[in-house]
């Protein structure tokens, strides 16, 4: 689609300065969650959710753009374009 991006009023430096405390708090929260899991009894090596969290954190650190969208897609069920055939759904109004 044609993106009608609005010119950002803030520079990258400004965003880092203004959003640093919020981002910092969220990283600490994430780190504390991992510590909590580490200290607890039990094994999460086979946990699908744990694997998704680790893959999500890799997206945060890679060099690619659209990180929020990519994390969302990582955490999503697959879409099958043939779903109507699979479910035997009859199209209406065609």
């Amino acid at each position, binding site marked *: *689609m044609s993106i*009608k991006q*609005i010119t*950002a009023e803030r520079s990258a430096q400004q965003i880092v300065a203004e959003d640093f405390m919020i981002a910092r708090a969220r990283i600490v929260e994430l780190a504390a969650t991992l510590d909590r899991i580490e200290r607890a009894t039990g094994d999460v090596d086979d946990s699908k959710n744990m694997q998704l969290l680790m893959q999500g954190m890799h997206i945060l650190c890679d060099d690619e753009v659209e990180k929020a*969208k990519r994390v*969302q897609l990582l955490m999503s*069920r697959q879409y099958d374009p043939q779903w109507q055939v699979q*479910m035997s*759904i009859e199209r*209406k109004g065609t």
Partner: protein
Amino acid sequence: MDYIDPHLHMVSRTTDDYETLARMGCVAISEPAFWAGFDRGSVDSFRDYFRQLTDFEPKRAAQYGIAHFTWLCINAKEAENVTLSREVIAMIPEFLDCKNVLGIGEIGLNKNTRNEATIFMEHVDLAVKYKQQILIHTPHLEDKYQGTRMILDMLMGDSRIDRSRVLVDHVEEHTIEHVLENGFWAGMTLYPVSKCTPQRAADMIERYGPERLMANSAGDWGPSKPTAIPDLIMELKKRGHSRELIQRVVYENPRTFFNQSKPFPH
């Protein structure tokens, strides 16, 4: 700043919330029919609910100068009960002439099942038959992407649908582009954990522009904040965006969309 919340479940909120909303600039609300937190057992339960939406809530809102509009349907969660769903769909026309009814909604998918898709399409038939606008619920979390794509497939495969009269709600970073690029309106829901924050909504406004885009609180009986739109207004102001841009998203866009069904009093 005056604003409109296009998706707010006031039946779940107190009268104090109406007062707070009015003090924060809310001039109109649209309230889609939704899940009550439990599955209802009969068509008469829905008839009473629709009476509440079309009679009681507009009066409660009016005490605080807020215009109240509504949408009618059986929600996707209860659509697994196909027999009950069909009884409710057959009953809905009793209410379509009520002066605050904007259309059919919030219809959509929940777990993306065959029954949900069947009832979704029967709601669409109803909307087409009675020339009603449509407000759509997209699923939560891991079901959202798949469900949104399925909903768009059903709508785009139906030549009777006027896309400019359909609002697809609860869009997020991975679904917004599919909705906007295909000519539908999109709504971003500001929800504490499971949907979108004011900051991410502001990001999407910057990324995609304000055309056919609006924001809502979807305040209901769960963890939610009915005054979330003022939070978005504040975030956009903090980022230095113009009053015109903010007003377009939180007031002009919902007004333009809803005016296709019922003229707004403001």
